C-alpha cells in the first residue's frame, strides 16, 4: 500500500503538479504585457545578441561575478554540478542509454558527491552575513535543506547503501512508460525518491521558479533597438487631457504661436 502510494500515485501526482504549476506560472507571466522598453544597458541590439546574453546569464552568471564573488563561486558551482547530476540521472529514465549519457557517468557521479559542498556554503553564507540573514525567509531555508537532503541521501546511496540498481531502473522506466512496476528498494532510496517528489511539488509555488523567470526578465531579454518605435499596448487607456487648473495647455500654446512676435510678452 505504502509502496503503491510512494512509487505510483505520488510520482504521477507530483509530476502533474510540477507541469501544470510551471505552465500556469509561465502563462500568468506571459499574459502581462511589457509596457516599457527598459532593458538594462549595455544591451544587445539584435535577437542573436539577446540569445548570447541569455546564454551567458544561464551558464556563467556574469552579473554575480561583478556583484558578489563568493556568492558567484558557490552559486555557479552548485548550478553546474546540478546540471551534471540531472543529466547523469537520465540513464535511469532512458533505454537504451545514449552514448553521451554513458560518457558523463563518472563526472556526474563525482558531481553528485560534491554538490553538498556549495549547498552548505550557500547556507552558511545566508546565516553568517547580517544582510542575508535579514532578507532570508522560510522558503530559502526550506529549499536549501531540501536540496541538501536530496544530495546527501543520494551520496549515501551511491557510496554506502548501494541500492539494487536494476530495480531502480525498472521502477523509473515503468513510470516513464506509464506501466508502473512494484519493486523492493532500500529505505534510503525511498527517502531520496520522496524528497525529489517534494521538490517537484514545491517547485512551481516557490522562488525556484527563478529558473524560468530569468528567460522572461524584461531587463535582460529585450533588445536595445531604441531607434525602432516601441508602442505600449495599453497606452491608449491613458489619454492626455488637461484640467482647468493646468494653466498652460496645448490650446494656449497654439494661440501664442498665432500672435505676432512683439505682442506675446505675457
Amino acid at each position, binding site marked *: 500500500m505504502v509502496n503503491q502510494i510512494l512509487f505510483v500515485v505520488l510520482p504521477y501526482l507530483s509530476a502533474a503538479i510540477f507541469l501544470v504549476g510551471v505552465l500556469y506560472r509561465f502563462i500568468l*507571466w506571459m499574459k*502581462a*504585457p511589457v*509596457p516599457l522598453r527598459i532593458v538594462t544597458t549595455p544591451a544587445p541590439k539584435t535577437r542573436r545578441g539577446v540569445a548570447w546574453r541569455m546564454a551567458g546569464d544561464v551558464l556563467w552568471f556574469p552579473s554575480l561575478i561583478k*556583484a558578489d564573488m563568493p556568492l558567484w563561486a558557490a552559486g555557479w558551482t552548485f548550478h553546474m554540478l546540478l546540471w551534471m547530476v540531472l543529466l547523469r540521472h537520465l540513464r535511469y529514465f532512458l533505454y537504451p542509454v545514449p552514448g553521451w549519457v554513458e560518457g558523463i557517468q563518472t563526472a556526474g557521479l563525482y558531481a553528485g558527491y560534491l554538490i553538498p559542498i556549495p549547498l552548505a556554503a550557500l547556507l552558511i553564507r545566508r546565516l553568517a552575513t547580517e544582510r542575508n540573514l535579514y532578507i532570508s525567509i522560510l522558503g530559502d531555508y526550506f529549499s536549501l535543506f531540501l536540496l541538501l537532503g536530496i544530495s546527501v541521501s543520494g551520496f549515501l546511496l551511491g557510496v554506502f547503501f548501494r541500492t539494487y540498481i536494476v530495480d531502480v531502473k525498472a521502477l523509473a522506466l515503468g513510470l516513464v512508460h506509464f506501466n508502473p512496476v512494484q519493486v523492493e528498494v532500500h529505505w534510503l532510496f525511498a527517502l531520496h525518491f520522496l524528497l525529489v517528489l517534494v521538490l517537484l511539488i514545491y517547485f512551481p509555488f516557490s522562488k525556484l*521558479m527563478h529558473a524560468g523567470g530569468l528567460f522572461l526578465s524584461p531587463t535582460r531579454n529585450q533588445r536595445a533597438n531604441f531607434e525602432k518605435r516601441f508602442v505600449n499596448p495599453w497606452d491608449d487607456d491613458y489619454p492626455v487631457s488637461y484640467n482647468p487648473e493646468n494653466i498652460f495647455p496645448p490650446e494656449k500654446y497654439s494661440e501664442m504661436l498665432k500672435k505676432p512676435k512683439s505682442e506675446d510678452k505675457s
Partner: protein
Amino acid sequence: MRTPLPIPPLKTGASAHQKSYPAKTKDMIKVDLPKERAKDWKEVMLKKMAEVLDRNRSVRLYLESCVKCGACADKCQFFLGTGDPKNMPVARADLLRKVYNRYFTLGGKIWGKVNEAADLDEAMLQDWYTYFYQCSECRRCSVACPFGIDTAEITMAAREIMAAAGIATKYVTEVVAKVYDTGNNLGIWPAAWKDSCEFLEQDLKDTENIDIRFPVDEVGAEILLVPPSADNFVNIDTMIGYAKMFHAAGISWTTSTYCNEGGNFGMFLDYGNLKKVNNRILEAARQLKVKKVYWGE
C-alpha cells in the same frame, strides 16, 4: 581597479524618520490625483495593484523570481549611506512582495506566516511611503541581480499604487504641476524664457562680439531643442554651447516655451503623468512643425 564602498552594519530604522514632505492639495489637483488620502485607501490601493500586476510583466515576475541571494543588497546608495536594512533593494521590494503575497497568492492568503505575507495596514503604508521614496530609481541593483530584477520598477509600481489613493510627495507633484503651468520643472514662465534667450544673445555680442541667435518658438525650424530647463537658468554655458554648435553647423533650430524640459518627473509619480509630460515634447514639435527633436537630460 574597483574600490568598493565599505558596507555599513545594519541599523534597523536608521532612515525611518526621513519622510518626504506630503503633497499639497493644489498640486494634487493639477496632476489629476485624489486631493488627499482616500478614506478607503486600502481598497483603492489593492485594486490599483491588481491593475498594475496585469499591466506590467516585470512586476509580477520580479516579485516571484527573487531568490533572496543578496547580491543587490549592498549595491543601493541609500543602503550604503544609511545602513537601514529596508533600503537594501531586495528588502525594499519585499515591502511590496509581502503585500502581494498576502492578497494575490494562494499560499499567502491561507497561511501568511510561512509565506512571507503581510497586511496592507497603516504601518506598512508608512513603510511604503518612506522607503519607496528613498529609492532614486537608478537601477543599479538590477545590474547586480543575476535575473536583472529591477527594484526601480517595483518602486514605480508602488508609487503608482499609492498615487491612485491620493498619496504622493510634495516635491514630485509640485514639479509635475509646474510643467503643466509653465512648460518646465523650474517654473520658468514663457516671458522669462524669452528674456533669458535675448539676454544671452546680447551677452555674446557684448563679450565675444558674435551674432548668434537663441531662437524661441520659431515655427518651421528644422530642429526643436529640448534642454534640461536648468541649462537656460543656471548652466547657461551649456545653453551657449548649444547655440554655438547649431550656429557653426548652420542648422535652423528653436526652443519652445511650451516644452523646455527634458526631465520627466512623471516617471516618479505614475504612468498618466509620465505620458502627459512627455506628450508636451510631441505637441511642441507638431505645433512648431520641426523635423527633428534634440532632447537631453
